[in-house]
């Protein structure tokens, strides 16, 4: 799956803006998706994309009057695809951290997707503070910034735990098998996966180390991209304002994670 989450606080204004001229030919907006991150974006029984982000983007497209096309691209190849113009953006709960903002424009954040420490059912109360993490292996998706967040935590508080990074969802398997005691992951997706596996997970009591949100990246220095970004930001804000986002979030994520207050 893709790299969810991100690190600590951000600053500066994200979102749209930039140069815009009405003359730009936009055409179809090609949205890359990882396609392996239920319930955010994944493939249904017929191999068609589905999930929260899919429906959200479709609705944005309708509101902004843009034609949308989805294309499955694994995380490894994404940024080549964006930069070479094969796709316009990539939907996979990407957190627009500072470093990333240097490279890309981000349209308006749409949801919060906090990572939490997740453990097997019954173990939640064993981990009340960060101190309790010591002596354990913590599995985390390598594809995001969560791993940096954990490393910072380790350094800042001088904690003795081991971080194990994965390029896929195998850390969920390892938690189920008992090879890991803790994983650091979006509870929304972790619970979906636990259900499929037929095991029980719960969120550990200790707090998360970052608050994170999701946004779509767009090429910089590209007038068309900037224009789309602006249109997307506008439509996203509308959906947040009129409750459409809340509705979608509750439908797919079983709670309201809509990002009313931007984090960055």
């Amino acid at each position, binding site marked *: 799956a893709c790299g969810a989450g991100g690190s600590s606080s951000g600053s500066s204004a994200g979102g749209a803006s930039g140069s815009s001229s009405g003359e730009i030919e936009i055409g179809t907006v090609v949205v890359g998706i990882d396609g392996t991150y239920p319930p955010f974006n994944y493939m249904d029984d017929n191999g068609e994309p589905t999930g929260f982000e899919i429906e959200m983007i479709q609705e944005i497209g309708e509101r902004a009057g843009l034609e949308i096309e989805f294309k499955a691209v*694994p995380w490894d190849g994404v940024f080549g695809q964006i930069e070479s113009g094969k796709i316009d953006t990539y939907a996979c709960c990407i957190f627009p951290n500072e470093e990333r903002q240097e490279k890309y424009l981000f349209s308006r954040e749409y949801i919060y997707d906090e990572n939490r420490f997740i453990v097997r059912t019954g173990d939640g109360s064993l981990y009340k503070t960060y101190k309790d993490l010591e002596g354990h292996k913590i599995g985390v998706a390598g594809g995001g910034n969560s791993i940096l967040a954990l490393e910072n935590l380790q350094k800042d508080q001088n904690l003795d735990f081991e971080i194990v990074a994965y390029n896929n969802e195998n850390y969920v398997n390892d938690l189920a098998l008992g090879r890991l005691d803790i994983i650091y992951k979006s509870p929304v997706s972790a619970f979906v996966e636990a259900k499929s596996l037929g095991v029980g997970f719960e969120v550990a009591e200790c707090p998360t180390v970052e608050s994170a949100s999701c946004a779509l990246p767009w090429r910089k220095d590209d007038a068309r991209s900037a224009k789309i970004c602006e249109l997307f930001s506008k439509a996203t804000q509308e959906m947040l304002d009129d409750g459409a986002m809340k509705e979608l979030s509750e439908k797919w994520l079983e709670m309201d994670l809509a990002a009313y207050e931007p984090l960055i």
Partner: protein
Amino acid sequence: MNIDLLYALKKLPLILSYIHVTLWISICSMAATLVFSLLITIIRYYKIRVLTPIANAYIDLFRGTPLLTQMFFIYYGLAQIIPLFREMQPITAAILVLALNASAYTTENMRSALESVPRGQTEAGLAVGMTDLQVMWHIILPQATKVAVPVLANDFIALLKNSSMAFTLGVREIMGEASLVGNAGFRFFEAYLDAFVIYFCLSKVIGLGQKYLEKRFSIQGRKA
């Protein structure tokens, strides 16, 4: 994580529906690899000036570096510099890079097979008045083929499986589809099982071709 065979069976047609992509990529890149590596092998065998060091550098480069990075640099990197690459279909690019990558291995294997043919065979050919190329074609290659067949079959099976790298460029094929299916319901076992079976069958076909060719090129008798 108990494997749900029924689920695997249900998903098989979906994953299988991408077999033409995998086959197309594999067959095209195998053909290109065969031609290209033969060319390079001959260049190196006869130590043709100028071309030989270029060939050697190419082998070092493409044999020594990860396929993923090659895909990345050629498809995205060169697209920056050479407009032609910008127009290129991802599947074409995948075939190109796969063939370039595989040729670097295959040419080394071909060289080793050629060198296993005793020098006397070449001399006998030259002595009856054949040119170097005629000796290569009528005498050396057929004999080297016997040694090369299992090795080339290995290369081709590796290529078949490497074709899944095309997914990185956004080309959906069997392995890519399997990972999509696997993630959808967190049913990796079932999806991978499907891929496992499909690749196994495809490789088996190459394996059978290998057996046939080995028989065909084996020289009968005790001293062979």
